[in-house]
């Protein structure tokens, strides 16, 4: 889809921003350009849509040399989102989102419908926000509009330069998650610049780690964590890279189906019997549809007359897609030290226990031979 061949950028003063960068990004791939500031990642990104001219090498999109295409046409076919968002303050949210469609001379109704659709996609109520101005939005909302705008004319390629860099950590995490969900549906080819290793691991299918204008390692996140090529990669990835590896595993990979599950309509005596015979102190309680309702502890059964009275609702639950690092923090806040994994309808799928995660950690540690 996107191919960079010996691309380089030398500024007139002799600074080499990018040296002989060659890499290929497949269709539908989420590629992250990662590295410390000044490593050339943003420069590389901007050379793809020719905001910065190359001084050497070629960039091909779908086999066509980008330098031979009309520059405005090229850019209209590539979504572009930046850290400072750059929404047009004098235009409404709808007009902002429809910028490229307007450049492409879509009719008014189609542009409006598209803005509505995209606003909905990024989780903002179209009727509330379509006619607002950027100054009336919060930072996170502006960022969402920025993402919606880069999807405006449904380009197959998105270039994103630290699009979540300027917002608070909590909103950022949420936007990252939502954007991944959007990407799962849209399957765009994405080049995403960040200096945040955690973001790179969470978002990327592949990571291109750069340093001083050179590509140091281009690999999948798991490979980057497990087999850092150089000392620089190892340092950049960080000493806690085993822990970071948890991010790559999802709840569904390590959850277990417990032997004992209590039905909510069971009698207290029967429940106690089941727990005792399995030598368990607690179990999950589900209803007839298999939906999870909370935990039942053996202690609480002594004083309860109905099972519902002994029920402790769960503070947090995981989905099959929850990364293990998040599940781990959920566990620390859970009374039983375990987290229930539920499907979208709230049905109980299994348990995540600390032991299971520890086993995963231990095995990845062993693989490294340390």
């Amino acid at each position, binding site marked *: 889809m996107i191919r960079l061949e010996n691309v380089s950028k030398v500024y007139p003063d002799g600074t080499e921003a990018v040296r002989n960068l060659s890499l290929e990004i497949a269709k539908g791939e989420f590629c992250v350009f990662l590295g410390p500031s000044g490593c050339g990642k943003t420069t590389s990104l901007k050379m793809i849509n020719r905001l910065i001219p190359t001084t050497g090498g070629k960039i091909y999109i779908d086999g066509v040399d980008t330098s031979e295409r009309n520059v405005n046409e090229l850019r209209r076919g590539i979504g572009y989102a930046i850290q*400072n968002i*750059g929404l047009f303050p004098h235009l409404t949210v709808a007009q902002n989102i429809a910028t490229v469609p307007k450049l492409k001379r879509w009719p008014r109704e189609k542009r409006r419908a598209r803005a509505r659709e995209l606003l909905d996609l990024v989780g903002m109520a179209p009727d509330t926000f379509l006619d607002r101005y950027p100054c009336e939005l919060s930072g996170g909302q502006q960022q969402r509009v920025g993402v919606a705008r880069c999807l405006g004319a449904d380009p197959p390629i998105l*270039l994103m330069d630290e699009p979540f860099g300027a917002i608070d950590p909590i909103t950022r995490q949420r936007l990252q998650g939502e954007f991944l969900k959007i990407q799962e549906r849209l399957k765009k080819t994405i080049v995403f610049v960040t200096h945040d290793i955690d973001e790179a691991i969470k978002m990327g299918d592949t990571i291109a780690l750069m340093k001083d204008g050179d590509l140091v390692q281009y690999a999948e996140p798991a490979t980057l964590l497990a087999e850092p090529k150089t000392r620089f990669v190892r340092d950049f990835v960080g000493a806690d890279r085993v822990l970071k590896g948890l991010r790559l595993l999802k709840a569904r990979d390590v959850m277990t189906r417990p032997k004992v599950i209590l039905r909510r309509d069971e009698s207290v005596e029967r429940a106690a019997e089941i727990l005792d015979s399995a030598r368990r102190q607690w179990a999950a309680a589900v209803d007839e549809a298999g939906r999870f309702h909370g935990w039942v502890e053996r202690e609480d059964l002594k004083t309860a007359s109905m099972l519902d009275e002994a029920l402790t609702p769960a503070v947090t639950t995981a989905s099959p897609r929850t990364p293990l690092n998040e599940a781990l923090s959920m566990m620390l806040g859970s009374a039983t030290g375990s987290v229930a994994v539920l499907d979208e309808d709230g049905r109980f799928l299994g348990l995540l226990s600390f032991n299971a995660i520890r086993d995963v950690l231990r095995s990845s540690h062993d693989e490294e031979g340390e």
Partner: protein
Amino acid sequence: MKRILTPLALVSILIGLTWWMTSLKTVGIYRIPAPSEVLRWTLEHLLLVLTAEGLAIAVGVPIGFLVSRRAFRWIGTALMLTVNIGQTVPTLALLAITSIALGMGFRAAVVGLFVYALLPIVRNTYAGLLSVDPSVKEAAWGMGMSKWQITTRVELPLARPVIVAGIRTSTAVNVGTAAVAGMIGGIGLGSLITIGLAVNVVEMVLQGAAPAAALAILLDLIFGEVERWMTPRGLRKATASGSRHGKRRGVLAADKA
């Protein structure tokens, strides 16, 4: 409403004052000009201001635009410096120079006022265009807008309130400066003030000064509305403080007159 009513109240007080002076007919041995004469001078004053202002807009906005372009920006810095120094040249001195060059009269006054009006317009156009957020322009480039589209759809709409504010300031200042022009060319309300001062008749001075002040307030009011109307809705919050500043300057200029 207060925004419009307060200046209008001031204007009616000033017109009332003028009318009162006119009704005196004579002060001592001097005849006080009749209402029709005051009106003629006022219109002449207005014509002088608007001609100079029109020329200044026609020339100033394109110059400000050009020097804000990357290729000419090196001129821009130097030009703005010149412009700022230029503004410190006393009004009277400038008008004296143009009168010597062009002979006394309407033409010399227009040229003098034109130079004066030009400065704020060039400066505001330049500053307005430079103040457009670079990330907004980057986003526009990145989405595939052409140079022309970025200028017309992004830069000019965003700079427009600042440009209009420059025009508004220069107009208000010019009503005052035009009164000084009257000293030299014998045109507009300035001539009334000059004569009044020469014969030491305060009433006659007021007859010239009050309508000039009224004119300044009125023009400022009109341009203030134009400015509001020209400001894109999404920007109105941000420029509210800016227009208040402009209004204050307008009143100062009127005082000077």
